[in-house]
């Protein structure tokens, strides 16, 4: 089974829905170790993404078309650190998925490019209590699943599961990048909001892959 442009559109709409559903939770996580705007900013960004997706003419043909629209919209509406980080992730992912369908290797390439974008922009590495701590295990799990012969949907599912575990694993970490780093030791004991939203977005990708059909906007 492969993933096509309908999956990319569904993933985008689901992302907007889960981010909005978890708005308060993300605000609260960010309030504890940051400045409390993460849920607000992502909701604003993804709401704009859906509006532009609805207005898109002609309909996108390539997976990368959808991801590029997400990238440019998030960069121009989110602000903060999350805008450039997610924007760069989607932009890099769009470049490697300029095809109508993705097989498992294509999904791995998409996720790897996204992670590379986040690392290039934010200059963070694993263990610094950032979204990299969700994306890195997600990519590793995707590579392992693809190597084991999993199809595209199963690769996304493996990535989502690993991202969720990676996000939870940020709880005991002391932040050394981003605004939470100002708290020093006091940042330990809190789930990183960027890792949390990354896990939500990757779970949306997995849900779209397993549902195999469009959802209501």
């Amino acid at each position: 089974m492969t993933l096509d442009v309908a999956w990319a559109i569904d993933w985008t709409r689901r992302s907007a829905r889960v981010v909005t559903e978890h708005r308060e939770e993300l605000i609260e996580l960010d309030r504890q170790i940051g400045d409390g705007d993460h849920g607000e900013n992502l909701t604003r960004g993804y709401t704009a993404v859906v509006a532009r997706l609805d207005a898109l003419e002609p309909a996108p043909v390539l997976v990368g078309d959808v991801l590029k629209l997400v990238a440019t919209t998030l960069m121009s509406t989110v602000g903060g650190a999350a805008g450039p980080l997610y924007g760069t992730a989607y932009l890099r992912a769009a470049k490697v998925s300029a095809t109508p369908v993705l097989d498992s290797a294509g999904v791995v390439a998409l996720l790897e490019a996204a992670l590379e974008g986040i690392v290039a922009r934010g200059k963070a590495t694993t263990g610094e209590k950032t979204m990299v701590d969700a994306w890195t295990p997600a990519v590793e799990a995707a590579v392992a699943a693809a190597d084991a012969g999993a199809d595209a949907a199963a690769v996304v599912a493996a990535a989502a599961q690993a991202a969720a575990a990676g996000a939870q694993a940020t709880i005991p970490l002391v932040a050394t990048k981003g605004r939470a780093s100002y708290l020093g030791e006091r940042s330990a004991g809190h789930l990183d909001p960027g890792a949390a939203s990354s896990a939500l977005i990757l779970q949306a990708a997995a849900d779209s892959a397993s549902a195999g059909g469009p959802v209501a906007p």
Partner: protein
Amino acid sequence: MKKLINDPQTVVAESVEGFGLAHADLVAVHTDPLYVARAGGARAGKVGLVSGGGSGHEPLHAGFVGLGMLDAAVPGAMFTSPTPDQIAPALQAADAGAGVLAIVKNYTGDVLNFETAAELADAEGVTVRSVVVNDDVAVEDSLYTAGRRGVAGTVAVEKIAGAAAERGDDLDAVVAVAEKVIANVRSMGVALTACTVPHAGKPSFDLPEDEIEIGIGIHGEPGRHRIPLASADEITEMLLTAVADDLVLAPGEKVLLFVNGMGGTPASELYVVYRRARALLSERGVEVTRSLVGNYVTSLEMQGASVTVLRLDEELTALWDAPVHTAALRW
């Protein structure tokens, strides 16, 4: 939460609209994308100065657009840096052929968005140089943090670099002056209460009635140390000592002493802080030759203050004294 707002989603746009109406002689407000430029546009041949950041810190930055300071300011959402598609047009608007200096506060979001915007403006043929203000001594500048934050010292950088641009310095020279200010300015702040961001609806951190946060930034984020409430003199001593030690001030040096309110502290209390800070500098043999006291870099309605010291030489003093005519600073 009690606030004089209509809707958290529109508060920034409505506030900037009002600002533009009130100061139409000084600024022109562009709404899509949102940025504030000097009325009448950039002056031919002058280096343009642009700054920006999250809203909620007023009068920073739009309040400093005008003669002798900024050519454009870019307000982001509340406590959220502006986006590249806001910043890039502001950089272009400020360009009058001599290039543009972007003054960026060291916060991850500001740095990333200005970096992206500078690339966009560069692609449109605008020469952009950036300086990053990092005056907050509360944050350890090391591999283990995002580096010291940019806080109230930003006002000094904007004023002095603005004066240098106004007198006709070229881009390299304006950058050099801005970096000289950054190298010689240090700040540290205290919060007595947290502030409430409109869209969050509750205080940005929980602070018991009898405790204060030492070393806060300006985005409502918690500081590094929480201590029991102390007297104004004791708190001032903590702030001033940290600032002066970091600057390694020697007897005989001249400084600008700037006591900045976070938005919810009355001027009377700021002057209590100023009084003690001045005495402490005097004890060190340091002469305060210029002063600024008031709400210039705020955090919404937060109660608290920051103490900023800038080491002055003749050049910086002259540039500080140069005429300025903006909504929030003029002489």
